[in-house]
């Protein structure tokens, strides 16, 4: 028996529409929220002129970007130049559909997800990695050196974080024994959240997700101070807005996937209301990522490569092997919890007791 009943097609279509509209709205307001929050971090006001507390700012921005002159650079590859931002947005939107927001039947008697895929995680990988083509082709098609450097950086950083990202996910998949996101959430409901069992994998995944969304400290493809805007240097008007859209949707999707995979998804040990916790968890990660952006520096691109290959990849691999060992030998899973805890303590120790580069007032 299928534990996840199917919806009629019209309902799936309706939900797909809802996800698209919802994500686009979320994107619009995320730009506002991010700007306001950054302003808070930076002791300034942020956009607060359009509407109450600047609430209509996204609408003003949308109108502005639609009506601005849409330039196509002379040396650009015209077809790809137009196609690239569309590609990016489409694939960014696709990823969100597989994420469950509640138990079966909690969406007015229908299912709170668009599609329930048995290969959910593979699907997520496939579509979210396709989105890099948007950036890559944009940089290539612009016919500008800055854009080219930006797109080269994005593809180089892709190969560095992608391995860590993929292998980090294998640990939970092994434990759960399914690629289906619903199965993963339900498993966590019964056995406890997965980050308890796989803290290093959780860490690697969260960092790699940050890189995938090209956010600080991994925002090298656009690096305004170096590449003026990177892959979207030559874009203007609505095409530029589409890139922003891609970036923010990746950002939102990443913030939704991390809790789904490691923090119990829509479940909560107490006061279990389907949608509430999911939205709160998403909001938490969105806030965290904005906080990081306000605090950190940008890595250099060889440093991201080294970090991806030298830290994310081995950590994910080691944890995958440990998990595989535990699962294959049928050892009690609680060993993994202990190891997770140990790794967490190790991380804390490394954070607080690592030699600081400079002590206050000390030598350079």
């Amino acid at each position, binding site marked *: 028996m299928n534990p996840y009943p199917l919806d009629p097609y019209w309902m799936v279509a309706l939900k797909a529409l809802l996800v698209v509209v919802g994500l686009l709205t979320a994107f619009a307001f995320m730009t506002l929220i991010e700007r306001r929050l*950054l302003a808070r*971090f930076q002791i300034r006001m942020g956009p607060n002129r359009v509407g109450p507390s600047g609430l209509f700012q996204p609408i003003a921005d949308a109108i502005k970007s639609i009506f601005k002159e849409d330039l196509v650079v002379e040396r650009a590859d015209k077809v790809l130049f137009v196609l690239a931002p569309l590609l990016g947005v489409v694939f960014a939107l696709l990823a969100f559909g597989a994420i469950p927001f509640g138990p079966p039947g909690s969406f007015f008697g229908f299912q709170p997800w668009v599609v329930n895929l048995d290969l959910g995680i593979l699907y997520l990988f496939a579509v979210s990695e396709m989105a890099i083509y948007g950036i890559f082709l944009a940089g290539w098609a612009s016919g500008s*050196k800055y854009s080219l450097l930006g797109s080269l950086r994005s593809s180089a950083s892709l190969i560095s974080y992608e391995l860590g990202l993929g292998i980090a996910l294998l640990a939970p998949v092994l434990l759960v024994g399914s690629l289906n996101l619903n199965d993963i959430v339900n498993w966590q409901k019964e056995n406890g959240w997965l980050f308890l069992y796989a803290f290093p994998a959780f860490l690697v995944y969260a960092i790699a997700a940050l890189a995938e969304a090209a956010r600080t400290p991994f925002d090298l493809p656009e690096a305004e101070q170096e590449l003026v805007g990177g892959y979207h240097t030559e874009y203007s008007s609505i095409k530029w807005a589409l890139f922003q859209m891609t970036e923010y949707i990746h950002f939102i999707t990443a913030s939704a996937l991390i809790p789904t995979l490691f923090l119990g998804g829509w479940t909560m040990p107490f006061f279990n209301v389907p949608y509430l916790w999911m939205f709160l968890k998403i909001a938490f990660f969105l806030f965290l990522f904005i906080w990081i952006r306000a605090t950190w520096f940008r890595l250099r691109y060889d440093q991201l490569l080294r970090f991806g290959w030298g830290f994310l990849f081995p950590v994910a691999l080691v944890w995958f092997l440990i998990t595989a060992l535990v699962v294959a030998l049928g050892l009690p899973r609680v060993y993994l919890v202990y190891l997770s805890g140990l790794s967490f303590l190790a991380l804390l120790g490394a954070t607080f007791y690592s030699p600081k580069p*400079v002590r206050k007032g000390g030598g*350079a």
Partner: protein
Amino acid sequence: MKDYLDPVETLEEPKELRTEVMTLNVGPQHPSTHGVLRVVVTLSGEEVLDLVPHIGYLHTGFEKNMENRTYTQVITYTPRMDYLHSFAHDLAYALAVEKLVGAVVPPRAQTIRIILNELSRLASHLVFLGTGLLDLGALTPFFYAFRERETILDLFEWVTGQRFHHNYIRIGGVKEDLPEEFVPELKKFLEVMPHRIDEYEALFAESPIFYERARGVGVIPPEVAINLGLTGGSLRASGVNYDVRKAYPYAGYETYQFDVPLGEHGDVFDRMIIRIREMRESVKIIRQALERLEPGPVRDPNPQITPPPRHLLETSMEAVIYHFKHYTEGFHPPKGEVYVPTESARGELGYYIVSDGGSMPYRVKVRAPSFVNLQSLPYAAKGEQVPDMVAIIASLDPVMGDVDR
């Protein structure tokens, strides 16, 4: 980049790999060239093979203009060159002319000058830090630095009526005494500032990413730094102990207690940290100066140099004559040449003035630290990557107005 990609590429085609160097034009309109510096970079991947700075986009002819202004009027031009540490230019020029005419600066004016000069240095270092860290991808320090700078500019506005181009220092003193509110407000600021400097350190100097990005990047060894004529914080970051305030004291700096912070590695990291530590020293100097701020005259009483006070014009014929002569013609220094080096936030700032005995300088040559320091950019940036190049430009702290004049 090559190190990482080579193994993959060599798998299939080891012989026919063709690479091409790329020439990239950075600036004059670019977010991180600190004004209108244009740099033509030859790149292999992201590695900088060669780099040629092009200057002159902000050439304003100040030095030439000065030849057609009386010695007092020139002070309108001086702060416009280095608009970030503008008091350094005012002071250096005034010192040079004072040496030429033999003016005596009263102690109170000396102290006021030192306070303002150090405040201005603080403001300049704050901009340096804010924009420098912005170039490394950190958004927030910029706003924090500008908050403190705003306070300093408010203080300037109190004293001089202007935030940037003060026109306050005069030959033989300063234009007028400090306003009453200034000293208490300055004391408040001095209370806050050290904590803020600690905050900056916590925010970036202890950040591992900053360490990774800045340590060992753009290294200039001491002997190279000396040969390239590097001065100021960038030279001291390489470990050379040369601060004009200590080496050739001027304007009474010899009477103040302060340290000269030195770096060891001469990289971007040291150049940034040196500035932070210099800010601490500046606060120290201002504190000492406040203690010795005694009431007194603020201008040289010599009527040849200083125009008579306004109220005398109604009673004294002599005052009217001096007033007339001063404002139509200015004073006539003796024939001769003079060079006075000072320490601006960017390095050794010197004014070389040739006088032919007229009321206007025959020639003014500014030894601008930004200009000289910029020539170490190709040396420091070769072999580094594009993001490092941006950081190196920021760490050398050029002000384009100072470069082009």
